[in-house]
């Protein structure tokens, strides 16, 4: 079997994880820029991080036959300071021509503040200006429902952004229908305690269909599982989902969405 993990933070994972993912059938990953667990002290910290994402990680992944692609932004947790965020955003265009950059992400909201919304709108403008795909982080737990709606409103306020070029990630049962109904793609994150389990992801596919939806691990520096995508495939298989449906949510759908960027040429 082959699969794509379209959202995983490999800078926080060991090389063993690359090996195990390759053994489980992973052929490509995409890595959004995110919060490192602490606030970086200067935009130069992001410059080095973007170099790591665009230069070093693709080489580490290639050792195991995995294609590595990335998304760039300043994440919502550090985006609550618009002045600092704008300094970071000013260096992003220098990286957009790199061969493994797919777009702007993971942008969005964290605590649904006015400051975060200002920075989100700036990112949407950056994506529009450079005709980039967008990968959206939706807030955690009690902030998710409210934040998801604010994010979709902000994107829709920019009439030139096609929702079919935007993936709203970390959907759960209370947000997935509205995301799909408004024309966006939806990502289900298989993450212990705070997001979906493989079982709930399979439930969501059964209730809302397998169109414009993918599964990802969002594996990072927290307690998380870089093999959660193949585990969700196994869950779907044991329930009796067809091989075509399993392939669709774990390979074909990511390839279709990501393939809107010509650099994503995974076959």
């Amino acid at each position, binding site marked *: 079997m082959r699969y794509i993990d379209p959202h995983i933070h490999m800078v926080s994972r060991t090389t063993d994880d690359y090996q195990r993912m390759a053994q489980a059938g992973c052929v490509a990953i995409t890595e959004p820029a995110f919060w490192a667990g602490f606030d970086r002290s200067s935009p130069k910290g992001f410059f080095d991080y973007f170099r790591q994402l665009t230069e070093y990680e693709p080489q580490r992944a290639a050792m195991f036959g995995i294609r590595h692609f990335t998304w760039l932004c300043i994440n919502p947790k550090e985006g609550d300071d618009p002045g600092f965020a704008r300094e970071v955003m000013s260096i992003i265009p220098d990286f957009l021509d790199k061969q493994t950059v797919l777009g702007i992400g993971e942008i969005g909201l964290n605590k649904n503040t006015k400051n975060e919304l200002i920075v989100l709108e700036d990112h949407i403008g950056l994506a529009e200006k450079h005709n980039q795909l967008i990968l959206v982080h939706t807030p955690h737990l009690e902030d998710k429902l409210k934040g998801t709606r604010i994010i979709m409103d902000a994107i829709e306020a920019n009439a030139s952004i096609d929702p079919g070029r935007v993936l709203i990630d970390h959907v759960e049962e209370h947000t997935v229908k509205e995301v799909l109904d408004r024309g966006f793609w939806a990502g289900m994150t298989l993450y212990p305690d705070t997001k979906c389990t493989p079982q709930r992801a399979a439930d969501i596919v059964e209730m809302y269909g397998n169109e414009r939806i993918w599964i990802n691990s969002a594996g990072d520096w927290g307690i998380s599982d870089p093999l959660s995508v193949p585990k969700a495939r196994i869950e779907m298989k044991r329930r*009796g989902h067809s091989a075509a449906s399993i392939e669709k949510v774990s390979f074909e759908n990511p390839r279709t969405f990501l393939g809107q960027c010509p650099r994503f040429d995974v076959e």
Partner: protein
Amino acid sequence: MSAPKTCPMSKDRVVDTYFMEHRAKLIDLAAFLDRFDRADGDDSGDFRMAALEQATRVLLDGQPHRAKRILELFSDPTTELPQDAQGTKGASGAYPLTDGGE
């Protein structure tokens, strides 16, 4: 109200496959509540426990979309945006309810 039959497994097979896993989770929840009772301190004021109590009622109401409705119950229902996060990056998992829990 009955839910649309979208699960490809029979009810018997759902029970065979998942009963033990969810039996264990239910006992974990019971043990957590017991642990809370056995701990020192005020047992009336925590909004997370109030939300959890409301959520357990949803489990038994016989209506569909329990997971969605519990997630909504734990969600911030307001529409106002604070200016900044005031140094808070994390989330607590529930939202402080007012007016007797409504």
